[in-house]
C-alpha cells in the first residue's frame, strides 16, 4: 500500500456542555500514536468555535465526542458551521454514548461513520487512514 505523503491532521472536539473527556483524550492520544497530527479543543466548545479551529488549523478530519445526548443537535450544527467556513470537505466523524438508531440516522445523513463504546482505537485510526487514502488518491487522479 502506498504511504500517504503527509500527516493526517485531526481535530478532536468536545462540543456542548458535556464534561466527559476520557474518550476524547484517549482517542486523541491513540491517533497521535498512529502518526496523525492531533489538536484537541478542550472542553465546552461551541460548534462555531470548533469549526473556527478546524479552519484555522486546516484539518482533514474533525472527530466529535458527545456523551451528553445532544448529538442530534450538535452534529448538524458543527457540519453547518464547517460549511460556512469553506470546510465542507472535512471528514466529520465521532463517537460517544449514541444509540444505534441515532447513529444510523446521522450516518445516512452524511455525517461519516460514528463509533460506539468499546470500539478499539486501532479501528478508528485504521478507518481514518483508509478514508484519507481514498480521498488523496481521488485528488491525485484528477
Amino acid at each position, binding site marked *: 500500500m502506498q504511504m500517504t505523503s503527509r500527516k493526517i491532521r485531526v481535530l478532536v472536539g468536545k462540543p*456542548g*456542555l*458535556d*464534561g*466527559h*473527556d*476520557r474518550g476524547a*483524550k*484517549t482517542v*486523541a*492520544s*491513540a491517533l497521535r500514536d498512529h502518526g496523525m497530527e492531533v489538536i*484537541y479543543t*478542550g*472542553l*465546552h466548545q*461551541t460548534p462555531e468555535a470548533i469549526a473556527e479551529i478546524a479552519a484555522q488549523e486546516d484539518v482533514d478530519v474533525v472527530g466529535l465526542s458527545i456523551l*451528553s*445526548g*445532544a448529538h*442530534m*443537535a*450538535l452534529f448538524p*450544527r458543527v457540519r453547518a458551521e464547517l460549511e460556512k467556513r469553506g470546510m465542507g470537505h472535512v471528514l466529520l466523524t465521532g463517537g460517544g*454514548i449514541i*444509540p*444505534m*438508531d441515532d447513529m444510523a440516522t446521522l450516518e445516512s445523513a452524511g455525517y461519516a461513520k460514528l463509533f*460506539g*463504546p*468499546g470500539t*478499539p*482505537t*486501532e479501528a478508528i485510526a485504521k478507518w481514518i487512514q483508509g478514508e484519507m487514502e481514498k480521498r488523496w488518491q481521488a485528488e491525485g487522479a484528477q
Partner: protein
Amino acid sequence: MTIDGSRTEVRAVDARALWQEEFDKAKKRGVEFTSLSGAPLAPLYGPEDARTDFENDLGYPGSFPYTRGVHPTMYRSRLWTMRQFAGFGSARQTNERFKFLLAHGQTGLSTAFDFPTLMGYDSDHAHSLGEVGQVGVAISSLADMEVLMDGIPMAEVSTSMTINGPAPILLAFYIACGERQGVDPKLLRGTVQNDILKEYQAQHAWLVPAEPALRMITDVMGYCAKRVPQWNTISISGYHIREAGSTAAQELAFTLANGMEYVRRGKAAGLDVDEFAPRLSFFFDSHLDFFEEIAKFRAARRIWARKMRDTFGAKDPRSWMVRFHTQTAGVSLTAQQPENNIVRTAFEALAAVLGGTQSLHTNSMDETLSLPTEKAVKIALRTQQIIAEEIEVAHVIDPLGGSYYVEALTNRLEAEAERYFAEIERRGGVVAATEQGYIQKEIHRSAVAYTAAVERASKKVVGVNCYVEDEKGPTIELHKIDPAVEREQHERLAALRKKRDGAKVKRALGDIRDACKSSDNLLERFVAAAHADCTLGEIADVLRAEFGHYKEPKIL
C-alpha cells in the same frame, strides 16, 4: 504463640517453600496476573504479606480507625440506603420516576441534573441547545424544584443532589422549596455533592475558578452547621476520578487529598473542625476488581480517621468517620451484549456491601446506550435487594477482615495513597497540583494504559475482546428524551420571568453581587434569591461576572 512457636514458624517456612516450588514448576495460563489497576498480584497471600496490628490498624467496627466499619452493628441495625440516581427530562417526569422508585422500596432519592443545570445555565440559554433534560433533569428555578419535589414529604425522605459548581444555588432552591412545603430546614436530610476540586480534575462541570468556588463551599459548611444541621454539605467524590480512568489507588488518594483540602479551608475560614467535619461524606466507585475495591473502602476509612484525628486535631469521633455512598462502575458496562451488565453490576454492588457502604446506586444494564428504562432500573434495584435479603452477606460485619489478601491490599493502598499525598504536598497542595494539570495527567495516563491493556487483550472484557458476538442492533429497549422537554422549559421560564416581581429579582441579585465582594455568607443570599424567583442562570451570571471563568490547564 506457644512455647514451641519458633518450631512452628520453621515448619511454616518449610511448607511455604515447598508450595512455592510446586507452584513454580506448574504450567500457568498465559495471562497477566495483575489487578484491574495494573498492580502485580501474588498467587497466594499469607501472614507475612499482611502485617497488621489488630488494635491500631483494624480495631472494632464503630471505633477508631474504623477499618472494619463506621457503625458497631453495621447492617444488623440498618441496611444500606438503596439510592438510585435518577433524573431526566422535565421536573414533572423526574418527579414521576422518584415516586416510582419510592413505591418499589427505594429508601432515598438521588437527583441527576442535565448539563445546563450542572454548568449554571438556564434551559433557554444558547449553550443549552440540545442538552435540556438529556442526561438529567432540568432545574432552572425554585418553581422547577417545587415540581420536582411535589408530593414527596421532604421532612421524611433524604435527597442527594449531584451538583457541584452551582451546588449552593441548587441547595438554596431545595431549602426554599422545603420552606414553601412548610418544612423547617432543620429537618431536611440529604447531600449536595458540592465537590468542586474533583470537577477540575475529572468531571469538568464547573462554574468559577477554584478560590471563589472553595469560598462558596465554606459558606455552605458554615450555613448548614447552624441552619440545616442534618445536611451533608459535601460528598467528596472519587467516583468521577475513577470513571475518568484512574486506578483504585489514585481514586483513593485524590479523593482524600481533596477532602483534606476542604477541611483546611473550613478551618481557615474560622470554623471549628468538629462543627463541619461530621457532615462531610464520601462517594466512591465500585469497580470490577472485587477484592481491590473492598480493600479500597477499608483503607479510605483508616486513612481518613488517622488524618482527621492526628493531623487536623478533630476530637469528635464523627469527624473521623468516612461515611460513603457507592455507585457501581459505569465505565465497566459494555454496549455489547448489554444484559451481561446486570452481572457486572451485581459483583460490584457486592464489593460495596462487603466494603461497608452506607448507600448504594446500582447501574442499569442499558446505560452505555442511553438513560435507563424503568425496567432496567428495577432490575438494578432488585440486584441490591437480592444482596440484602437473599444471600446472607449482610449479617456479618467486615466479613473479609483478616483475609491475608484483603489486609495486604488494604495496606498497599494506604501506602500508595500516602505516596500521592507526599507528591501533592511537594507540588504545593491539591489546588496547585490540579492547576498544574498533574492530577489530570495521572488520571489520563492510567486511562490510556487501561485502554491499551484491553486492546492487546491482556485485560479481558466479555463481549468486547473475547466471546464476541455479531450484533446487528440494540437487543434491548432504550429510553429516549422527548425534544419537546426543551421547548416546554423555554415556555416555563418565559412565564416565570413575566409573572415575578422584577424589582425583587434585581434587589436579590444585587445583594449577591455585594456578598461576592465581602465575606457575607453567599448561601444565605441564594436562599433569598430563590424565594424572589431568580433563576439559576441569573444567579450564576452574577458569580461568573464577579469571580470570572475557570480555564482548564492543557494536558494534551
